[in-house]
């Protein structure tokens, strides 16, 4: 009775799905229904086939059985061919190619004014057609996101008017400003282009050079964009884009700043008597030689008249007494040696200090883990009236200092400050308030470490805070590296112990208990 009922239910299901498939509006939905019908039909055939007699009271019983087996193979073959001809594909990846990247979603969601996008796409390019579909879907949802797609081969007159000659070029226009992204199917680039257009101005970041800073060679060393074939890269446009550049260079930082509409240029220290007015932020990233007294004067004057300064010092930078005195005026001290953290560090390298937690500050919003390779200690020695100081990143209380030559310096130091941000009136001045961020590490911004978890976010967010750039949402900078998951040494130990030791051991012990009880 139950068997009959099952067979009837399977028959009704197969018929119902087949009818639903026949009346479906689009092919994909129809194929999903046909798949349901296919499953029900195959189960029905199985339920009927198991009732076929095993033997016939005939001399040719062997032939009968062989025929049954052959028929079973034949049905399975035909069923699979039928399914193959009415197949449907599902993209179940979170950041799949048919989903807008989070950067573009964030920008589109936060639009307060109309932005017009024109995409001169190549109809023969699968990725370009996908990008077009995604952009159209966003335009459907967001009223300020105005979009039109034009086939470059068919719309040559419009393309000429726009001055577009390259396939898959996106033209972004808003409030009389315009940006172009040539030859792209990576929609993250579109998000950054919108942000560039909306920012109206292009803040200039001046990199102090003349003391062996890596920025000195940024335009002289060879680097290029590359592409790595990975499972993700195959599915997500731009997912496999990487940079081939010297590890000690700063090309990744430079590109990340360009993507959000910043302009960078060198500020040759020996040749300037004052920081030019067009510099929104001055950065001294990884100097190797001490400043001259004249350069010290330039920096002090700049801060005194409300300058925005980011100082990033590695342990090998000699801090002159004059620089020490300048920083002490605002309550800061730069120590010697390398910070070692036996608790929070990256993988098994204790000198790569990992910082998982931060105090609330505009710079540290949404920051995940940051990794400081070979950091030097900082100290907030004194609170100066009129200056708000915040220690943005510090080590665990078990950290200690080691000299550059490897010898341990003293006993446990407790939490050591790695990044300090200050904002306020320069002592004795009453003008525009200054902003200063002091980092006990410059390697964090180099090509080698910029992609590590939130390192890039920290450096870019610091520059944006210094430039008082609050226009638009904060996007995670493109680091042109493959997505990676970084664990501290402690996290690695826990993971290994739980998954390789405890879990199998627990099952083995359970088996032992079962065996013991059966005895």
């Amino acid at each position, binding site marked *: 009775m139950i068997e009959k009922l099952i067979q009837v239910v399977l028959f009704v299901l197969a018929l119902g799905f087949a009818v639903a498939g026949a009346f479906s509006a689009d092919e994909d939905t129809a194929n999903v229904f046909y798949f349901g019908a296919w499953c029900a039909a195959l189960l029905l055939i199985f339920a009927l086939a*198991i009732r076929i007699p095993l033997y016939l009271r005939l001399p040719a019983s062997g032939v009968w059985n062989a025929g049954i087996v052959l028929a079973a193979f034949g049905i399975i073959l035909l069923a*699979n061919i039928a399914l193959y001809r009415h197949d449907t594909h*599902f993209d179940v990846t979170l950041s799949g190619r048919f989903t807008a990247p989070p950067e573009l979603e964030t920008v589109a969601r936060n639009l307060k004014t109309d932005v017009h996008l024109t995409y001169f796409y190549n109809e023969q390019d699968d990725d370009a057609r996908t990008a077009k579909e995604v952009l159209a879907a966003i335009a459907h949802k967001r009223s300020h996101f105005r979009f039109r797609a034009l086939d470059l081969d068919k719309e040559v007159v419009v393309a000429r008017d726009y001055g577009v000659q390259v396939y898959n070029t996106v033209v972004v226009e808003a409030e009389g400003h315009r940006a172009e992204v040539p030859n792209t199917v990576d929609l993250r680039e579109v998000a950054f282009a919108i942000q560039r257009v909306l920012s109206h101005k292009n803040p200039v970041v001046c990199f102090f050079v003349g003391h062996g800073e890596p920025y000195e060679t940024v335009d002289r060393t060879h680097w290029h964009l590359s592409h790595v074939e990975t499972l993700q890269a195959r599915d997500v446009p731009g997912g496999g884009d990487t940079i081939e550049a010297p590890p000690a260079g700063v090309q990744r930082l430079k590109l990340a700043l360009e993507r959000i509409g910043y302009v960078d240029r060198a500020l040759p220290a020996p040749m300037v008597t004052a920081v030019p007015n067009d510099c929104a932020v001055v950065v001294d990233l990884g100097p190797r030689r001490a400043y001259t007294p004249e350069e010290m004067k330039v920096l002090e004057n700049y801060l005194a008249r409300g300058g925005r300064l980011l100082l990033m010092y590695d342990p090998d930078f000699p801090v002159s007494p004059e620089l020490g005195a300048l920083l002490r005026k605002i309550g800061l001290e730069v120590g010697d040696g390398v910070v070692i953290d036996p608790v929070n560090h990256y993988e098994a390298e204790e000198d790569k200090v990992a910082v998982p937690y931060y105090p609330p500050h505009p710079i540290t919003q949404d920051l995940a883990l940051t990794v400081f390779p070979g950091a030097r200690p900082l100290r907030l020695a004194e609170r100066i009236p009129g200056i708000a100081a915040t220690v943005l990143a510090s080590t665990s209380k078990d950290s200690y200092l080691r000299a550059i030559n490897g010898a341990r310096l003293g006993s446990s130091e407790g939490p050591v400050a790695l990044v300090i941000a200050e904002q306020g009136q320069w002592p004795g001045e009453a003008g525009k308030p200054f902003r200063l961020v002091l980092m006990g590490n410059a390697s964090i911004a180099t090509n080698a470490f910029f992609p590590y978890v939130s390192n890039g976010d920290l450096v870019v967010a610091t520059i944006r805070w210094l430039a008082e750039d609050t226009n638009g949402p904060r996007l995670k900078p493109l680091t042109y590296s493959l997505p990676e998951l970084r664990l501290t040494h402690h996290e690695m130990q826990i993971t*290994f112990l739980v998954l*390789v030791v405890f*879990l*199998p051991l627990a099952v*083995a012990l359970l088996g032992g208990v*079962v065996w013991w009880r059966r005895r």
Partner: protein
Amino acid sequence: MKTFAALLVKEEKAIFTTPIAYVVIAVFLLIMGYTFTLTLFMSHAASLVHVFFQIYVLFLLTVPIITMRLIAEERRLRTLEVLLTAPVSEVSVILSKYLASMSLIAVMLLLSGAYAITLAIFGQPDWGPIFSGYLGLLLHASALVAVGLLASCLVSNQIVAAVMSLSLFLLLWIIDKLGYLLPDPFNALVVNMSFLVHFRTFATGSLFLSDAGFFISVALLGLFLSIRALGQR
């Protein structure tokens, strides 16, 4: 239905009251745990794709061990005659053994979910390919167990049954390499017989319904032939 339930309980007990199942699971978790942590620490990728392919291969090796004794053991212990002369159908016998074996596989996959949880704790994994990967492994195992069960029905010796199913699994693993050398339309036919070709799409999160259909149809074919093979004994 009651007899089927009684048979299923008997089979589940036969599996989970012997230490063999726990040894298989423990070894499986040890190998997979080591592979997962090593891959995570070296590649830093918040993905289980490599783990899925490793489990896929591990199933090809362990399923014959799980299925070899299902019918052959009954035959060796001479309990098969008793079973078949009892008022139970061949369908109930086969399905109960099949489901019991699948429950062991399900426990193994469930425990391997610890790797996905680990990724969720330390990062933001893409859950789509993780769910589809597990679905693919379950479908892959369902086809393997059905074929292994058929091998156990066809021969009396457990070792022969294991070697037979292992050989078939290894052939179906790499058969696509042979298929690419064949002329049209045999190439498509042979390539589509490969387990790996159908499993790969699940592991990467870009799946086709025809791949799910392949595993379902192989499982049903294996079960149907097992029922007939057992009946003819």
